């Protein structure tokens, strides 16, 4: 029976020169891909927020416009009758409907004037602007007190 001679093993490299294993490369690649996808997602989300706030700014400007129009309206205007509800109606910017506005006028009693509860001390006007549709609908509200005049 002859003794089997195994081929000589290549000498193992010293510890400092072992190189990088396949598993290490794969794990590093997966981590890098996850980081890059998260970065891309954050860019996309940021861009979406910019577009979303463009509409929010337009809606706030529309609410301020309605409030100023009511401020400039004559005292007997039906738009300021107490109590009353107006709208909803489309807000047009450059001929394009961008949101819906409505406003409500209520009696507001001045707490310092409790002599005559039937007297209208002030008018509380609440302008509501809604944009978007369905589950994505968003709303902004402005409230201001007007003199009873």
């Amino acid at each position: 029976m002859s003794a089997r001679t195994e081929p000589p093993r290549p000498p193992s490299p010293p510890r400092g020169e072992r190189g990088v294993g396949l598993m290490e490369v794969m794990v590093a690649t997966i981590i890098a891909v996850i980081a890059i996808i998260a970065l891309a997602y954050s860019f996309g989300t940021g861009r979406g927020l910019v577009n979303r706030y463009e509409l929010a700014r337009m809606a706030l400007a529309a609410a301020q416009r309605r409030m100023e129009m009511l401020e400039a309206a004559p005292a007997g205007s039906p738009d300021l009758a107490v109590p009353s509800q107006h709208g909803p109606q489309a807000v047009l910017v450059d001929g394009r409907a961008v949101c819906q506005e409505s406003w409500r006028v209520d009696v507001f009693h001045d707490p310092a004037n409790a002599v005559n509860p039937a007297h209208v001390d002030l008018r509380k006007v609440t302008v509501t602007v809604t944009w978007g549709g369905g589950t994505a609908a968003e709303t902004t509200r402005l409230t201001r007190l007007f003199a009873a005049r």
Partner: protein
Amino acid sequence: MSRPGQRGITLIEVSIVMALATMVVMGLLAFYLNSQNTWTDGSSQAMAQRDGTLLVGAITDSVRFAHSAEVQDSPDSLHQTLILRRPDGDEFWRFWWNAGDSLVHQGPGVGQDRGPVVASRVVRFQLDTLTRLVEIRLVELRAGDGQVVRTSSAAALYNRPATP
């Protein structure tokens, strides 16, 4: 004569590795450029939106001090000048679109330019006046990426007595 542990790498292996590395680098470069464009577009549009709000706010603040207002086409109906007056009829402030730089400027009168209100270029600046109201019908600003930002509002002349 080389031993098994010291064979090195062949030209084919180097070529494959270089091709794969090139693909990865190209992918990362495309991603970087795309992300940079998205970021730049979003930033410039957000700045234009902010400038639109600032411009409307500046006009509103001045209109509230005025007793009366006048709107003139300058140089056409897409770009107008807003002139604000005191109760004695004297002009105290104006906003106008400057054709030289496409910016809305402000100042106390003709030839007294206090500079642009905001840094974004304005494509349309359209206004209207009612009895106690200045309507900012359309302010259209062009963002750095070419996209257009629109806004509109109104401001009441608080210095004018209300009609009964």
